[in-house]
């Protein structure tokens, strides 16, 4: 088992979609300022699924907002494909945790998924792209429903389909399954792995669930502390495809779970 790794030795810059160098973030807080992230250096490799795991209050969401261009970092540099980011980069889509606020409740599922591509491609092409994205998440039969008619898991699928419709190079997912029940969560985890297989996009997946981080990740970055720092990274050497029962029974899975747990400092939230 290789628990080390994650450093950039021997890799060229074009192997990375994102390169963060000494990123720090300070946000206004109660009349003053508060450091949220400190000295984050992290690369995201092309085509990998990187899970970022850590307790609440360690700046996980802030980090994804910086990567997604919604917040600019106070110091340091964030590059995408070698270019410094300024605002939301093209082909990088954030999937938010609170799907009920993130979906346009007045639009049908079809029109929600069309949001990022309508007016940018021909109508016939749009229809194909939207239906393809819905098929990827198994919602092709719900195209004409409104979000408020769907269960939580289905609404989160709509949000994922909406992101996939733009054929993103990178998906930034902010605890997307945290509000879902255990069964829905498990099936969405497997769906996400299948979608990644089919589309080949890079995924940054934030979670506070250690098992989820190990199960999904090609690589795990552990973030901890306030302000948050990257504690360490792991290359996950578990076999693929992953399986909810078999993978979770592997001794290696348990070892990774233990190692991540140790890196966080024994606190599970």
């Amino acid at each position: 088992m290789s628990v080390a790794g994650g450093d950039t030795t021997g890799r060229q810059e074009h192997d990375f979609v994102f390169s963060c160098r000494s990123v720090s973030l300070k946000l206004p807080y109660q009349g003053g300022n508060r450091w949220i992230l400190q000295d984050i250096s992290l690369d995201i490799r092309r085509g990998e699924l990187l899970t970022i795991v850590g307790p609440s209050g360690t700046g996980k969401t802030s980090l994804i907002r910086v990567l997604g261009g919604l917040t600019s970092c106070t110091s340091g540099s964030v590059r995408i494909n070698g270019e410094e980011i300024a605002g939301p980069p093209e082909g990088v889509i954030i999937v938010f945790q609170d799907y009920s606020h993130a979906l346009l409740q007045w639009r049908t599922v079809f029109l929600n998924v069309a949001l990022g591509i309508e007016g940018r491609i021909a109508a016939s092409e749009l229809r194909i792209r939207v239906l393809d994205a819905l098929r990827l998440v198994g919602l092709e039969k719900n195209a004409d429903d409104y979000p408020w008619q769907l269960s939580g898991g289905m609404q989160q699928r709509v949000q994922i389909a909406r992101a996939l419709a733009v054929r993103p190079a990178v998906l930034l997912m902010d605890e997307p399954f945290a509000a879902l029940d255990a069964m829905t969560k498990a099936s969405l985890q497997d769906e996400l792995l299948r979608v990644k297989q089919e589309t080949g996009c890079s995924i940054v997946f934030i979670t506070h669930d250690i098992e989820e981080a190990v199960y999904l990740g090609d690589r795990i970055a552990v973030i901890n502390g306030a302000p948050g720092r990257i504690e360490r990274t792991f290359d996950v050497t578990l076999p693929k495809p992953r399986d909810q029962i078999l993978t979770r029974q592997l001794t290696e899975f348990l070892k990774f779970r233990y190692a991540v747990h140790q890196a966080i400092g024994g606190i599970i939230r």
Partner: protein
Amino acid sequence: MTARRFSGRLWWRPNIAGLLTMAACGLAWELTIQAGIIDFQYLPAPSAIIQGARELVASGELAAATVHTLESVFLGWAIAVAAGVSLGLLLGFSPLLRRYSLATIEVLRPMPAIAFVPVALLLFGFSIQTELMVIVLPSLWPVLINTMGGVMGVHARLGEVGRTFRLSRAAMLYKVFLPAATPTILVGMRISLTLAVVLAVLAEMVGNPEGLGYGVVSQQQALRPDLMFVYVVVIGLLGLALNALLIGVVSVSFPAAAAELKGYRP
């Protein structure tokens, strides 16, 4: 919540219980006068009012007055909605504009519409402009305040969704903020419509001698309470009909927004 309750076509279904209450009130009124419990020569029975209505319908006066009042209401309301939504959007998006103008708005807002009648008469004489001047300003506020509040109340996440998909500023407005604020804007439009009816009648009573409002005043001066009450009742029914019409149009064109207005169905 049933799936398509609000997108269905049931908005025109009459409210039987509500109509029964109205009929019962009318019947009670009729009976108290017939039985001589109330004996007051200037309070006609509903039967006398219906008789009067026949008279006014036959002469064409009622139709002409209704058309005139409707015209003022729609024109005044349309101007108030157009101005209210535009100004409300500006104020909703700009904290700077809010800081500079909200104090002025709060001074203008409580001004009684009737205070504008002498000014309007001096400027426009007996004309529909006089009526519009009285209607527009007070009916503007509910639309403006609700549009501003609606825009400010749009969840921050929706703006971030727009940004992550790199929507242009225009697309952000008409694809995200305007539809998200629509239920609130519709509440303002609805309050404003009823207000416009009240103000049109008011303007006709003390300003421009035309329409339903002038009908009330002129029949009062002619000592014909039966005919005066016809106008009063028609004004009430007009308010009811316009409200129902607005809700009907909304349920068909904005099913999601209609869901939020459902509690107000007359």
